[in-house]
């Protein structure tokens, strides 16, 4: 037996360790790399030799010894190949072979030497026994404690193939646990065509279940397929149960295939639980390529495979190139079409999906009109009368109107509509207002934003009255800078409302002298450049309800009675409006005082 001591072909001490530790984000990638090497060996043997053999990979865990063994019956390595490929970082026969091959069925995955490097990350010692198909009479035993030095000795010939033994380092003893390895293999290797057996007493390969998109649809019943899709999804979805699945079929622009699923967990609005696992050449490259999914799909997970994607050096990520963008749009289309299909065909699933992801779908619908049309009548928006769909709002508010409050709760307009039992959409809630707006743009109806000028014009319908009456109302109810607007609105027992003018308020605030002390002169000039153009001279508007019996009485009354009604109306309105602002001429304490004095007067009058 001759033993020779060699040095690896990278003559840079320590580089190995640095490289191996930094190249991969998680040490468990080592398992992927070694299984991949084993797979490539099998493929190589099939290409190069005339041997009739059934390729297989065995993984053996031994917790007591702390070892993990990966063995294959592939091509094996000769003495020179060990030196050239196994011990030379970045070089690999696989790469050479892959460049040569044209046959897709015989797909090679890895970069042999680079993949082997990952084994050093998790092991304190590494052993390889191998016999090449080219020299079945020779066997070799390779040992290395650290990546920098290794020993190579001849050994009794073994059956053709390779056996890699990892003596796991302290921190990675978990990798000798069969359950951990099974979990990793079912994710990393589930697309590999070569059967992988875990500890030989397990009778079926861990990758016996092909991905659903590779099943022959003609021979599998739709129910079985549906079940298998859900099981497959469950394997890849970390946090949630899958609720339903959506296939991704190849298109003319992209050959990617795969499966998406909707997560069975409640999301709210912008929750983002997207995840996509990407396989390239049968190997899991990235477990979280979430950006392949549209930004609105926070409740969707998926797996895709595409051999057109280019893995990065660590092969834990893919390059964001033109192919990537094509797949992005392919997934977007598949998802929209898939959701539409569920809406039409799987009614109970659809109902569950809506219940789970209503808010997320509100945002999603806004991003794509086709999706909007599928979801438009089924999604609910929050309203003062509970969560309702738009058709239900239309029905309750009469005449296809959607009233939306956009300010703080308890505004005047809101009080009115609450009294009328008309639902008001809570515009401050996620996506509610844009959803209603888009709905009416596409299907008719009108959104009325309460508290805005245009909204007020619709709610408080202006009406012309005689100049004398206008004058009377103005002098009785308004103070300087305030304006009375005769109008009609529901409910008729609400006599009037007060609405401050926002432009006026802004102008006052920006043009006040004390602001000079707070804001820099240069920028204040710019701000005032705007406010000086504002024509607002009215501080607040009183919308006076001509349908109100009180207002009618006010107009017909005379003398002291008229003044008393006016005083009561004014103070009542100010109190209801809850505004207190000196600059608007609204003094709440004065209003309260007037209110109580007038009531007292009326009681006194009655006594008399």
């Amino acid at each position: 037996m001759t033993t020779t001591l060699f040095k690896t072909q990278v003559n840079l001490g320590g580089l190995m360790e640095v490289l191996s530790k930094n190249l991969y984000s998680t040490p468990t990638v080592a398992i992927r790399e070694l299984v991949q090497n084993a797979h490539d060996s099998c493929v190589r043997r099939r290409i190069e030799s005339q041997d009739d053999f059934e390729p297989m990979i065995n993984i053996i865990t031994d917790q007591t010894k702390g070892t993990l063994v990966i063995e294959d019956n592939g091509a094996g390595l000769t003495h020179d190949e060990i030196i050239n490929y196994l011990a030379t970082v970045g070089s690999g026969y696989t790469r050479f072979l892959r460049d040569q091959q044209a046959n897709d069925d015989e797909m090679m995955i890895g970069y042999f030497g680079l993949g082997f490097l990952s084994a050093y990350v998790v092991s304190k010692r590494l052993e390889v026994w191998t016999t090449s198909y080219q020299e079945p009479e020779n066997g070799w035993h390779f040992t290395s404690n650290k990546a920098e030095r290794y020993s190579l000795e001849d050994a009794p010939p073994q059956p053709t193939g390779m056996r890699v033994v990892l003596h796991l380092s302290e921190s990675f003893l978990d990798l000798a646990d069969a359950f951990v390895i099974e979990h990793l293999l079912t994710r990393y290797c589930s697309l590999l065509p070569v059967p992988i057996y875990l500890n030989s007493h397990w009778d079926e390969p861990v990758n016996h279940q092909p991905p659903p998109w590779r099943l022959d649809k003609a021979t599998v019943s739709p129910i079985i397929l549906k079940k298998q899709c859900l099981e497959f999804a469950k394997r890849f979805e970390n946090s949630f149960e899958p609720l339903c699945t959506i296939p991704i079929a190849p298109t003319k622009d992209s050959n990617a295939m795969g499966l998406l699923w909707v997560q069975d967990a409640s999301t709210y609005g912008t929750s983002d639980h997207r995840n996509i696992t990407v396989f390239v050449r049968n190997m899991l490259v990235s477990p979280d390529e979430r950006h392949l999914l549209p930004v609105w799909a926070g409740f969707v997970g998926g797996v895709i495979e595409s051999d057109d994607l280019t893995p990065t050096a660590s092969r834990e990520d893919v390059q964001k190139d033109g192919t990537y963008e094509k797949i992005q749009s392919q997934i977007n289309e598949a998802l929209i079409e898939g959701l539409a299909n569920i809406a039409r065909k799987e009614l109970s699933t659809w109902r569950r999906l809506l219940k789970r992801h209503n808010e997320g779908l509100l945002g999603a619908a806004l991003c794509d009109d086709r999706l909007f049309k599928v979801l438009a009548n089924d999604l609910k928006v929050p309203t003062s009368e509970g969560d309702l769909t738009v058709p239900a709002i239309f029905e309750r508010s009469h005449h296809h109107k959607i009233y939306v409050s956009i300010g703080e709760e308890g505004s005047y307009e809101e009080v009115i509509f609450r009294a009328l039992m008309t639902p008001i959409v809570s515009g401050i809630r996620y996506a509610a207002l844009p959803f209603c707006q888009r709905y009416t743009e596409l299907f008719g109806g009108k959104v009325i934003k309460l508290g805005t000028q245009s909204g007020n014009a619709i709610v408080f319908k202006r009406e012309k009255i005689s100049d004398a009456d206008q004058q009377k109302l103005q002098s009785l109810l308004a103070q300087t800078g305030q304006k009375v607007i005769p109008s009609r609105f529901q409910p008729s027992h609400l006599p009037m409302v007060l609405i401050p003018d926002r432009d006026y308020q802004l102008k006052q605030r920006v043009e006040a002298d004390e602001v000079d002390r707070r804001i820099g002169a240069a920028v204040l000039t710019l701000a005032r450049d705007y406010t000086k153009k504002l024509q607002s001279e009215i501080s607040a508007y009183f919308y006076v309800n001509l349908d109100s019996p009180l207002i009618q009485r006010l107009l017909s009354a005379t003398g002291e009675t008229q003044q008393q009604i006016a005083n009561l109306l004014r103070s009542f309105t100010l109190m209801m409006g809850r505004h207190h602002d000196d600059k608007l001429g609204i003094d709440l304490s004065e209003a309260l005082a007037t209110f109580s004095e007038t009531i007292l007067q009326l009681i006194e009058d009655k006594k008399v």
Partner: protein
Amino acid sequence: MDIWKWVLETQKDLTHQGHHRLVHLMRMLPHYTVNEEHVQVDALVPEALALARSIKNPWLEVFLRHWYLQSRVAHRHDVTDMLPEAVSLLEFAHRDETRDCPQSICAVQDLTNCYEQADGPAYVEERLAVANETLAKIDATWPCFLCISVEYATALVDGKRYEEALAFLKQQAHALLLANQHEDRLNMRDSWIEALIRLQRYEEAYDLHKQASNLGRSKSARLKKAIDKARIMAYLGSYEEAKPALPDFATIAPTPRHYFHWAEAAKLLAEAAVIPNDCYLNAKFQLMSDKFSHNGVVRAAFTLVLWQADLALKRGRPKTATRCCERAEALIPRLRKPLDAPQLLAEMRAKITTALTNLPTITTAWEHPHHVIEALGDDPETNLDILEEARKRWPEHENMALFTATAYDEIGEHQHGIELLRQYLESYPNSPDVVLKYGLLLFNEEQHEPLQEFVFAMLKRDLDKEVHLNCHRLLTTLYDKNGDFELAKPHLLSLLEQEPDDTESRTWLAELERKTGHLEKALQHLDGLVEQHEETGNYDWERMIVATLLKDWDKVRHSADRLGFENIPTEGPIEQNRGLCRIQFREANGESMTYYAIRTGPVTAQILEMASPSSPQHYDDTVVFEPISVTELDEAVAQDDEELIYTSIQITEAGGYTSYILDGVHPGEEALQQLKDALAIFGCSCQVQSGERYQLQRDDDSEPMLGLYAYIAVPETQSLQEVADLLATMTQDYAHPLIWQGIVEKLGDNEEQERQLRIEEEYGL
């Protein structure tokens, strides 16, 4: 103070206080903004603001409002709508409670940004003053040092003080070096590259572009870099590299921030004949300048329009260029100061004048307008030249006007098309087709008020009947869209007065009458339509619905017969078994539920399937349904071997049942049948919901047993106590008990309730 440090600390505090949602929104707002996901920004901002206000955190409000302005102004260039908000935020961010918030400086920047967008060159001095004022308060260790420096440099570039801008940027880079932040200088790339390009130092610009190529991974940064690469390469004459670098127009169309430089690059490429200089490029320029003009980004709109004119001239379309000049001229008064705009416009006009004199004359030897229409080809701009020439000869020709307006529409000049029709109608108001087209254009542009004004004015004039009819059509369309059905009806009636045989209007009116609950009126119109038409149509279906609702069975029969329904009884109400179907109900909260039913007539069904006790009950309801099935609309689904689904219009007779749950171990088919028969005596029905997979196990380790989960529908008039007693009697000898908790709960029988609860626990029901 470091803004991002403050943001992170705030997020930590808020998380600690349990405001997770607010923290999430705080994170997402900048993320969506820089990734050009502005739909999402609009969706979340109101909620985030309401949450910040509810916990009375004004600093946070400044943060959120600033980022909203970033999205609306810096990215979407929406100056007109957002200037008031920028002014308001500036004031808010400088109150006692907010002035120490590190983000307050950003509010200054937001306002300056508005003016930079509106008319950057005209506000150079003000912008420099504002930037100086801020720079005086901070040093190179502040993150806003970079932003404000860029602002200062951009103002210099806008003032064409390029060398000064470069010198300033170098000085700021030096300050960063001293503050040990030298790498950050690349964050000033935008104004730096701009200054170099304006000085035609393209090689240096490209070097800087490359140096900063790793900077910024957001979608916005990626688009900006791609566009910069395209225009620098184009300036360097490397068109083959420039062309693939330029993003598709569709990619940048939603975000005006990228318009200007995209247009600059596209113009260079079109001039070099690397991309086609055609009417479609014209349409893109038009879209961008219209958007700028609408958003109050006036100077950029002006420049874009002149570029558009220049491109038009270069492809031999001086008339298109002339129209551009008209639009440019209208923009000048909206600029804060004209500066060189009038001169640039005059130069362009001079070029156009020369081009017009050299323009080959168009053959005008047409004998008849239809020769003109025949002469039209595929290129809308060529067509426009022909049509405008022909219109001089036949200005009154209605179709010619319509064709011309359409051609303007095709090259992106929508407003010009609308204006042309408006002018045409001033001279030739008796043109019904133009009235309709003009009205629909206004309708599609959502110009509802001008549309109403126009239509009412036309109705007041003494014009041809056809014109008035189209006016009524337009108003009906408008009111119907807005849901003002009562307002729409009189216009349809006016139409029908003039044209009693107008099928479309009568069908429409019948539909509105039905929607507003006037069934008799609806039926009258539908009767008229059926009488009028020998062939069947939608009106027959509509008539069957309305007549069924009114129980006018002879009319249902009549239309059913016309439509080819077979085996309809010849007299009396129609109550048959026409097979299974499914009926979809929209419940009060808007949710839709579907149940199996027997179709009892052409548009009626009776519900067979019970709903769970938690849903509204429809068992035994009789309904009138919309006879177009939900699934018929979709061929892919129609192939499925499933019963058709129809939407319920109205419940004509309620079944009057309430459902309850019966749960426990399956007593065997025979016993179950006996139980069902006994329940039937009280008018109750029982429907089993469970299958073989419902297996039960007592809490010991016994064998699993088949379970029974069923609904019992009890008539509302039936005594519930009697049903409970019956269930107790019938099930008392079962090997394992059944429970009916809903019934017991409603009866308030506490003792029984406890007994059933124990059974529930024991069997794990």
